[in-house]
Structure formats: structure tokens, C-alpha cells
């Protein structure tokens, strides 16, 4: 196989080549590209070793090959593949980081974020509009969200990684995102009903 430049190679076709030697060459070339990209992206991180880079490159390669049918040609193939590789690597690194947090601490955090929320009105000084906004927001968080929606919103506010929120909710990534999205829409709707416009929201902080 002649790999010269990005413009001259049809990656999906090469990776599906019926000639097994051609196919193996394309796979190997792609693996090298992903590995090099990951090295650039993760350069300087103390939690990433050479062995990790190898693992990430291999796992990414399999993921890309598995999703070949989803490539729509709307970007360069290599950019699309690198994005998948980064998703594989960062998801794993986040998981490792949170693995070190004890189960007890997680449980405590989980319990804490499902408790009713209190927002101190006095934290916002005398500005009437802002006080009104905070009041409506507090009431909406406490009354208009399901416990799981509240947990998801509070998790986000505590800067908990999204995968961790997903785990806490015991659901899938897309279901958790939908839960969070529905919660944000419900809060926004409540603010609008209370006469707080999008512009007010943007101006308040």
C-alpha cells in the first residue's frame, strides 16, 4: 500500500481492503498515527506512561475500526479517528483518577447531593432582580426537579466528572445527559414563567 499523504489515501477503503497484506499495512499505519497523536496530546502528564500510550493506541484502534461505518467524511478521517482516540484515553484517565476515591467518600457525596438544596439569599446583596432570581431558582431546584435530576445538577456544580455522575445515577451516559438536559430546561422554563428573561439571566452574573 502506498501511504503518501492524507489526500492520497482513502482510509475507510484501505482499512477494509480485501487484500489482507494491504489491510494490515493500513491498520498498522493508523495505529502509528493514533499513537503519535496521543503522545502529543498527553505529553507532560505524570499519570501517563509509555505503557499507557500503547494501551490507549491499541484500544483506540479497535474502537475506530468498530465504528468505521459511522465515518461520514465530513472531516479528514484522521481527525475523526484522533477524536475517538482522545475520548478513549481521557475516559480511562478520568476513571483511574476517580478509582482512588474511596467508595465511602463517593457514597457520602452521593447522599449529600440528593439532600435538599439551600441557597443563601443574603449571599447576593441588595440587588432586587438578583435576589428574585435566586429565590425562584432555589424554589425550582427544590420543588421542580426529581431527586435524580437534582443529584445530577448538584454533581455538575461540584465539578464531578460526568462519568462519575452517570455511575452515581446508575444509568447510561445518554440517559444521564438527557436527565441533566431535562433538568436544565425545567429550571429555565421556571425562570421564564417567573418573568425572568434570557437577557436577565445573562446580565445577572
Amino acid at each position, binding site marked *: 500500500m502506498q501511504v503518501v499523504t492524507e489526500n492520497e489515501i482513502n482510509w475507510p477503503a484501505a482499512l477494509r481492503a480485501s487484500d489482507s497484506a494491504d489491510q494490515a499495512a493500513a491498520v498498522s499505519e493508523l495505529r502509528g498515527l493514533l499513537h503519535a497523536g496521543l503522545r502529543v496530546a*498527553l505529553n507532560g502528564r505524570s499519570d501517563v506512561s509509555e505503557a499507557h500510550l500503547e494501551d490507549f493506541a491499541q484500544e483506540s484502534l479497535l474502537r475506530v475500526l468498530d465504528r468505521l461505518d459511522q465515518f461520514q467524511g465530513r472531516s479528514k478521517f484522521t*481527525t475523526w479517528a484522533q477524536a475517538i482516540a*482522545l475520548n478513549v484515553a*481521557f475516559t480511562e484517565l478520568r476513571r483511574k483518577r476517580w478509582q482512588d476515591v474511596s467508595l465511602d467518600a463517593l457514597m457520602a457525596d452521593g447522599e*449529600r447531593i440528593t439532600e435538599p438544596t439551600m441557597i443563601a439569599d443574603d449571599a*447576593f446583596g441588595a440587588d432586587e432582580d438578583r435576589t428574585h432570581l435566586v429565590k425562584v431558582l432555589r424554589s425550582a431546584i427544590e420543588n421542580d426537579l426529581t431527586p435524580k435530576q437534582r443529584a445530577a445538577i448538584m454533581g455538575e*456544580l461540584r465539578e464531578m466528572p*460526568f*462519568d462519575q455522575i452517570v455511575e452515581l445515577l446508575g444509568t447510561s451516559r445518554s440517559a444521564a445527559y438527557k436527565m441533566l438536559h431535562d433538568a*436544565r430546561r425545567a429550571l429555565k422554563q421556571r425562570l421564564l414563567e417567573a418573568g425572568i428573561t434570557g437577557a436577565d439571566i445573562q446580565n445577572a452574573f
Partner: protein
Amino acid sequence: MKPEDKRLTSEQVGSIVKMLSLTRDREFNCGECLQHVSEFAECQLANKPVGEIIASVEQHLALCPECREEYEALMKILKAGQ
């Protein structure tokens, strides 16, 4: 736990407000963002205007720190390859 631990700080209220101001009825989830982020990144790199579909990527990145972290890493790779 002290009662004030359960309060939201002004900073957190600011975060909610920012989240709400960015909220749209239709949004990409993380999977959809991943599917289109490569196109968005190439447009950004080439200073090309983004179309309607990939504008949803920009909106998702503003709300999702994880996807943003991965996007920034992708830009690092693309810039290194220029």
C-alpha cells in the same frame, strides 16, 4: 455537616445561571458531540464559519467540561501537525 455546607455559593449559582443561559431545547449529547467534533475542530483551525449542525458542537463544548478537555487535546494534535 454544618448547615452552610448545603448552601450553594454565589459561584455555584453563577454556574447554574450560565448553564441555563446556554441551555437549548435541542442539544447534542456527548456521543453526538464526538461524532461531529472533528469537523468543528477543522473549521476552527481553518477559521472557517461553522454550519448549523456543528454550531451544536460549540454549544455542547461550552456546557461539557469533559468534551471540552478532549476537544482542546484534539486542537493540540492538529496544531502540532500543521
